[in-house]
């Protein structure tokens, strides 16, 4: 499935991933292939995604929102904390 992480300043990541974990407001959750359509707000925390090509990556986001639709995940974060 396709994941993109976008902030107002730039596109942080886009590409194929096997799984992704998000810091939902009501607790962390993982999204795998063929997940049902979902919109969730994110709290401050870690976004982790696993891709075959690049392995596991972790980003610290300062809240945001995630949409999952037809194997496409869009993460809108206001800020990535380096």
């Amino acid at each position, binding site marked *: 499935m396709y994941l993109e992480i976008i*902030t107002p300043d730039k596109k942080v990541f886009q590409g194929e991933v096997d799984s992704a974990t998000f810091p939902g407001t009501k607790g962390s959750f993982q999204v795998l292939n063929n997940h049902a359509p*979902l919109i969730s707000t994110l709290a401050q925390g870690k976004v982790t995604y696993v891709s075959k090509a690049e392995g596991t990556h972790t980003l610290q986001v300062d809240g945001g929102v995630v949409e999952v639709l037809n194997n496409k995940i869009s993460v809108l974060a206001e800020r990535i904390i380096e």
Partner: protein
Amino acid sequence: MKHPVVKPDAHFLYCSTMANLKEVKSRIGSVTSTQQITKAMKMVAAAKLRRAQDAITQLRPYAEKLTEILQNLSSANKEGTDNVYGEQRPVNRVLIVAVTSDKGLAGAFNTNVMRRIRVLLENDFREQHQQGNVEILPIGKKALDYYKKGDVKLHTQFSGLFSNLSFDEARSAAEFAMENFVNGTFDKVIVVYNEFKNVATQIIRAEQLLPILPAENEEEESAATVDYIYEPSREEIVQELIPKSIKIQFYKALLDSNASEHGARMTAMDKATDNAGELLKELKLVYNRTRQAAITTEILEIVAGAEALSSSR
């Protein structure tokens, strides 16, 4: 467009029968160096414009996705969004955000903003202004310098935003406006800025940031009613997203203004370079004419001298 001050000056040199050669020469020198400066400034503005336009392009995917999600959410639950940011109150106190640049030499770029704000103060918010209830939040040094002299109350803490423009910086200014709207300090927030149309065209806009205006295009309600899982609840997500979209609207105004500034400066400097070129042409003509006149006079003197000598012999 020709520079009004420069023209008559050149004309004066034209008409004076014996313009001083040295004077004209030094003038040619100074105009040449001015032209070099304006040319360089134009080039710099062009490079900065490209970067500013890139920033707008970068913002677009985020802004579009956000609007898309918001539309999805609000099309599912019709109206009924009691939003703190959408509350319509009788307008007593107004905050005007004046978006200008830090630097000048960009044609009418900054003047247009001030002029638009003056119209707002004299017409739309006349009563509030007379009671001293209009406050201004200048962004960019030019607005700060301009309104410092006036009697309008200022909020100067965000005036330096453009020295290092990023979403993080813009966010704090937007949050300031939102906070003061929610706690009732202001009943209306207006952003006045230059919208970027293309390099040569800037459109001056006075946009209402708060309270947020209800979405206009409601006709596509049947479009894509996907059965989303909402986490936590739909209302809570909407409440979370609306401030985000206000911040984005604000940031977009700043980015637009930034790109407009460089576009305006580019056009202004291009005209200045052209003007200098024209002036140089005229000055060179005057220079050559004067030089020739001087040579002619000299020859005349020699011939006359020789004549006098030969006749006295």
